């Protein structure tokens, strides 16, 4: 008999029927993004934070409404962060905004190839776990770094 939990993805104790995490960047339009979400049926949507520009018409309201309409779990990320402190700050802001402890942790060491900074990554992961976050670190396949992230309390790795 087939186990009905077979195929489920479990992240930090939360079960998902889909194993797909869908990014929300680089869609030509909100409607195209909405169509992609409907077709892909992902477990979660990954999103970012950006500074508001004074006087900008783009306040994020349209995107925010789309996120709420999809009713999908949200996985915020710390894209663009180059230090542990910056990533921790961004994660805290994301937690307040999206009301989730999940965070895709990115600490970038190289702007050109987006290689993670392993030192900042482990430092940020350690602190964020202490703050109650459920950290999904964006890392390389470096076994030692992966081991350090797991020792810091990460239950999921994103190499």
């Amino acid at each position, binding site marked *: 008999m087939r186990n009905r939990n077979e195929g489920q993805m479990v992240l930090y104790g939360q079960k998902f029927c889909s194993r797909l*995490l*869908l*990014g*929300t*960047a*680089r*869609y030509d339009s909100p409607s195209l*993004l909405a169509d992609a979400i409907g077709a892909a049926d992902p477990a979660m*949507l*990954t*999103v*970012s*934070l*950006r*500074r*508001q*520009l*004074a006087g900008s018409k783009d*306040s*994020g*309201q349209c*995107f*925010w409404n789309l*996120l709420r309409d999809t009713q999908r779990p949200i*996985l915020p*990320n710390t*894209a663009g962060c180059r230090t542990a*402190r*910056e990533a*921790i*700050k*961004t994660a*805290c*802001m*994301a937690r*307040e*905004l*999206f009301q989730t402890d999940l965070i*895709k942790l990115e600490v970038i060491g190289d702007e050109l190839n987006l290689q993670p900074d392993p030192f900042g990554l482990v430092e940020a992961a350690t602190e964020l776990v202490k703050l109650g976050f459920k950290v999904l670190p964006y890392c390389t396949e470096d076994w030692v770094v992966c081991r350090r992230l797991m020792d810091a309390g990460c239950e999921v790795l994103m190499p």
Partner: protein
Amino acid sequence: MFLIVNGKPHPLPEPLMLTELLHSLSPMAPFAVAHNEEFVPRGAYDTCRISPGDRIDIVFPTAGG
């Protein structure tokens, strides 16, 4: 006197609380705030004092991932 809001200078005639600053800036919801690289929870806006030279980041959700 000035402070830095989202990387740009912003006039600050006198020190004030973050709540007052946000009222004058009127950012569109939803947003979150950091003061001098530290996250400020919404419940602390009334007690966060802004001084000349301080840095404020106001962020909102955007596509990414």
